[in-house]
Each structure stands twice: as C-alpha cells, then as structure tokens.
C-alpha cells in the first residue's frame, strides 16, 4: 500500500516499481525475438488509407490500434480482480450485448439501409447504460449473494451472446456512416488510429480517478481483507458492485470501438476470448489474481504486450483458432512463475546460489 501511495505522489516513479519489470521484461523478450527474426517488423511507414488521407502504417501502429480494446478492458479487470479476488469472464459476452444495443439504437427499425437514425452520442449512452447494468447484475450476484465472481459471471458468459442476438432479432445491422466509422478507424487529417486516442482518454480518466479519489485505496482494502474494511466503516458490497459497474463501462467503450471497426456485429465471434486476454494482461502486470494490491499502469502495459504477442504470432502464420493454445501456454508459465510456492522455492534457490554459506546456516 505504501508503494502505491508513493507512486501516486510521483507520477514518474511507477516506472521504478518492481512490479513494472515483469511486463517490461516480457516486452523486451518479444522485441528482441522480433529483431532477430525479422527487423522489418518494426518498420513504420506513412501510407494512404482508402479515403486518401495520410496515415501511419506498420506493425507497431497496429499493435497500438488493436490493443486499445484490450487495454481498456484491462483497466476494469484489474479493479475487479483487486476488489473481489476473482475475474470477470463475461467481458466478451457483455461487449456483444453492448454492441448489439448500440447498433439497435443507431439503426432504429431500419436495419439494412446503413443510415444512422439517432445521434451517436445517444446510442453510446444507451450502450454505456446497458454495460453498467450488466456489470451491476454481476456485481450484485458477487456482493449480495456472495457467489464466486467467476461463477457469477458465468451466467452472462453463457447467456450474453444469446441476449445480444435477441436484442437485434438475430439480424446483422450494417452502419455505413463515416462519422461512426471514425471511432474505429481514422479521423480525417490525424495519422494515428482513433482507438488509440480513446484508450488514452480512458487511461487519463482512470488515472484521475485513482489520483483524486480514494477508489484505489478502497478497492485494495476490500481485496486484502473484507472484514477489516468493514470494521473501518467501508461497505465492501458497495465497492464490489462499483468495480463491476466500472468493468461494464469499460466493456461498453470497448464495444463502441469494436462495432465501429467492423461497422456491423457478429454475435458469436465479436470479442471472442477477449476475457482470457484481459485476465492474462492483469496476470502479466504482476497483479495477484487472488485480489488485494494492484498497479494499473502495469496491467495496461501488460495488455499491449499481449497484443504484441498476438501480432507476432499472426506474423508467423499461426491460425487464429490455434492462437489460444499458445496464449494458454504463456498464461500457465506466467501463473506458475508467479505462484507463491514456486516463487519461494526460486528465491531460496537464488539465495543459495548467491550466498551459499548464509543459506546453509539458514537451513
């Protein structure tokens, strides 16, 4: 907690934290691997997109672009993990629901014309509301009915995509509006993809939230000990529902980007397996998956590292269906390395290697 406070005081100091080293090391390993395999990976060029505007292109840009949804989700997932000690596995399904609701409002009754029938801001607000409702549902199950987070979110995980299909009567609305498309593409005259800026806004918002309110402290104290926080006059139920609502909001923002990118929605495929990536981002960021302390910046970097890994794997012609096997292997290795038992053994081993005589005395 002290470390967290200090990092809050000095914005730059979070780069010095030990926890930040884990995703940084993973990133470094990936960069070196790519440098050796193919230095062309890092080339960034100034090309022109289909509309004729000058835009930046290259693998690095696409990582920043495609990683934004994941990074936004990682924000919510970090808070959920820290407060409840479990993960939200309904993220992908909630994105499908939000996206479906967004398109429903946007297209109104006319699903095929491609013209938008209502202002984008209204549609987005409805989308946020739906996301927050989903989050509140999950949060209520976790906080008031005391169901394990993963099992509670299992309900929406099972039903989410079905509900999404139901909202639009299983039709696939198309949107051909250029303003709407710019959320997932490019704004005229700006060479960087818009999702990157949306992600930046989210980071700024969450940084302000953690810096100027005591949300971070509340979340951590509930995650570390529910009973103690209650004795200190903090209602853990409110905090838990709160973090799930924030998670829902993150899903809504991610849904906006996803739907705008695709200009339509595919209920069974949109944001598939993204919850896995988000959990992986939190784990990679060095946050304990059993709740308690967290470091937001570390999770966000973790999300981009995962996108880096995905892009690298795609570059080596790995099938998108087979991708999950590699990622799962990465998760297992990470989780095993970060488990307290293994860490303790490793520390012992390291200590005995560096100072054989003291270790001998201790044993």
């Amino acid at each position: 907690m002290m470390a967290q406070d200090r990092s809050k005081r000095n914005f730059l100091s979070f780069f010095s934290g030990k926890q930040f080293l884990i995703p940084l090391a993973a990133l470094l390993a990936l960069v070196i691997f790519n440098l050796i395999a193919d230095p062309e990976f890092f080339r960034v060029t100034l090309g022109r997109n289909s509309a004729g505007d000058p835009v930046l292109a290259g693998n690095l840009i696409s990582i920043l672009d495609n990683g934004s949804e994941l990074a936004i989700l990682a924000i919510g997932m970090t808070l959920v993990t820290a407060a409840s000690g479990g993960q939200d596995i309904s993220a992908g399904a909630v994105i499908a629901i939000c996206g479906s609701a967004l398109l429903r409002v946007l297209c109104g009754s006319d699903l095929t014309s491609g013209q938008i029938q209502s202002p984008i801001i209204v549609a987005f607000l409805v989308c946020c509301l739906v996301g927050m409702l989903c989050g509140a549902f999950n949060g209520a199950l976790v906080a008031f009915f005391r169901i394990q987070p993963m099992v509670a979110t299992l309900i929406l995980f099972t039903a989410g995509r079905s509900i999404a299909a139901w909202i639009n009567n299983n039709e696939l609305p198309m949107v051909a509006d250029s303003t709407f498309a710019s959320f997932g593409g490019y704004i005229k005259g700006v060479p960087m993809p818009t999702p990157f800026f949306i992600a930046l806004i989210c980071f700024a918002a969450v940084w302000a939230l953690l810096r100027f309110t005591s949300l971070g402290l509340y979340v951590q104290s509930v995650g570390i000990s529910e009973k103690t926080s209650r004795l200190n006059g903090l209602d853990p139920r409110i905090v838990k529902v709160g973090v799930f609502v924030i998670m829902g909001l993150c899903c809504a923002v991610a849904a906006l980007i996803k739907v705008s990118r695709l200009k339509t929605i595919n209920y069974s495929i949109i944001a598939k397996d993204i919850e896995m990536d988000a959990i992986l981002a939190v784990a990679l960021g060095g946050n304990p998956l059993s709740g308690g302390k967290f470091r937001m910046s570390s999770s966000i970097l973790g999300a981009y590292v995962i996108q880096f890994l995905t892009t690298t794997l795609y570059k080596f012609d790995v099938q998108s269906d087979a991708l999950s096997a590699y990622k799962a292997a990465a998760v297992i290795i990470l989780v095993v390395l970060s488990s307290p038992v293994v860490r303790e053994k490793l520390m012992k081993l390291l200590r005995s290697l560096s100072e054989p005589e003291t270790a001998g005395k201790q044993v």
Partner: protein
Amino acid sequence: MKIKRIHKKRFCDLSDSTVLTMITAAVFVILYVFAMIVFQKGFLKPQTFFNLLNANAALMILSCGMTVVMVAGGIDISVGGVSALVTMCCAVFIDHHGGSFTGAALLALGIGLAFGLVQGFLVAYLEIQPFIITLAGMFFARGMTTIVCEAPFNVQNEDFVRIRETRINVPFLGSVNKNGIFINAYIEIGVIVALLTAAALFFLLKWTRTGRAFYAVGGNRQSALMLGINVKQTVFLSHLICGLLAGIGGFVYFMHVGSGSAANAAGAEMNAIASAIIGGTNLMGGAGNIIGTLLGTLTLALMQNIVSSAGLDQAWWTGITIAVMLCIFLIVQSVLIAAVILHRNPLTYGSMPAEFLYNLTKKSVGASSAQVLCGVALHEKSPPDRVHRQIIVYRIRGQTLFMGSIIYPVFCFFLSS
C-alpha cells in the same frame, strides 16, 4: 422452547444438498408431466426419455467429474475443451492412422489423465487458483484441437461405425408405430458407460475414505488438515478424476456424434457446472451428490427439449434458458447458505435480520434468552466478533428504532407465554 430447537435443527438440515436435489427431482417430474400434457405426442413415448439419456450421456459423465471437483472445493472448466480435443484426436487416430477402437479409447483416457495430472499438480501442489489453471487448460485444449486437425470431418472406419451404431433395446418399454408394430425403446452404449461411471463415483463418494475426504477438504480445508487428511493429495486426486472423466466423456461424445471437430462439446463446461449446481452441489465445496447431478443434467436437457418443442428453437433461447435456470438455482443456493450461517452465527456479515432480532430481544430478556428466541448460537469467546457486534448494534439502534418499537412487545409476549 424445546420444540423451537428441534425446528431449528431441521432448518439447518435443509441446507444439505439433499434438499436441493429433491427440489431438482421435483422440478424434473413437474416439467416432464407438464410437457406430457402440453406436447402430448412426443413426450408420451418412452423413447423421448431415453433420447434425453442418449444425447446427454457425455454431459452426465462430465457433470459427475465436475461434481467431484466441486465437492472438493475446486472447479474445472477445461472439461469441454478436453472433450473436443479427445474427439479430434480419436477421429484423426482412427481415420488417418488406421487405429483400432481400443486404441482410440486408450488414447482418450490418456489425454484426459494427462490434463488431470498437470492441472491437479498445478492446483494442489503449486497452490494456484483452479479457475485460472483450468481456464488456461480449456483454451489450450481448444487451440490444440485446431492444431491437430483444422477441418471437422466424419469418421468412416467401418469397425467404429458398427460399434457406434450398436443399439441396446430396453425390455418392456417402447411404443407402437404407425403400422401397429411394437418398437422397443433403445439406448446407446454411451448411456451404459455413463451409468456405470456414475455408480462407481456414487460408491466412491459415499462409502470410501477417499470420497469422504473430498467432502472434508471441500467443507473446511483447515479442519480437514487437522483431522490428518492429506489435503493436497485429495485436491490433486479430485482434479485427476475430473480429467479422467473428461477423457471418458469426450470419448462417449465422440461415439455419439462420430466426428472430430473443434466445435464439439462447445459450452459443455458451462452445462456441466450448471448441472452440478442445479443438482445441489455446493459451489463452495463440501456438499453435493452424484444422483443430484444426474437429475440436474436431465432437468437441463429437458428444459432445452421443452424450449425447442415450444417452437422457440432459435439458438439464443437455449443459452438464455440455461442461464436463467443457473441464476435461479445459484441464488436459491446462496440464500440457503446464508440462512445456515445466520442460524449458526447471527453476527456473520450479511445476516442483518438475525442481528436485528437478537439485539432487540437482548435488551429486554437478556442475552441467553435472546439466543434461544432467535434460534442462534453465539460465539461469545471470539474477540473480533465482539468488536464487530458493537458496531452493528450502534448502527441498528440509529436506523431501526421505530421498527423496534413495534416488534419489541411481540417478542416480550412470546417470552412470557
């Protein structure tokens, strides 16, 4: 007063998974009778019931494995992925490499066992959360399925097809077809396997030392450790059994569909968890039984059957129905657990009604009588609770003075009578 105590005891018994099982059994019977009345044609045939078994034999096995893990306090969501991997590997083994039926069965067992071993080791001995490990296991298995072979295909091998299409007639049960010929109802081999597995697990959980250890570890790890149970080994064993059953379940699924595909057994893990929960397995561990799980699977399958019979056969209705059922049963379970905690210790967080009543009555009749009145046993000796109580008493006084003034006389009356 004695009567009240007995009543309390009975209420505590309610929390046992047997009651949830009984609820499930009642729901199943009511649903089936309902279906018989509404959709007369199909549901009056015995074959409809046996088709439920045929189609869900694999799910039953998976649910049984899930029950064992959940009783021991863990969870395994890799079962669906492992089943898909098994179907694909067996299909490739039989069709592309000319393998035999026995070889494929052994391969299925081997894959299941390997997953169980690795996951069990990571969960039990490295103390990693079971959900994370098995989630990774699920994605790994699904990914591996695509790596083994991309395109789904049907197995053409004659031996296999012959065994797969073996039908076992059920004596005395059947229906008369249009031409007036009596046709016996039939079941597939998979059902026999499923029932045998369930029987073996029922025996294991009920009457063996290992089986009871699962309940002990799931109920309270610390106490189990103090009783001299090898907790780590027990957790490891539960995951091993679940992995093994995922292998068997995958093979039964393979025998039912006869094809290898990455889309096989999609969502099976969720259905298995839902079945176990509906059948009365406690999510927190320590309670559950195999009979309930079987009934849970059948109830779930029956629901889907009714939903499609009712003409709501759009794919999304199935998902929503299962989720709604899961939600209802989870909440019922959670309320039951809360009720038990409330009766054991009224000052546990979340049992406001008991705290409220206790504190109200205590003022007029004294602590010990209040305990009896509220049907609670207090742990007077634990200091944290005492601190906690102080806070809650304070809060209640401020908020509910008015309510108290109404309920107060009623309790005084109760005590005097």
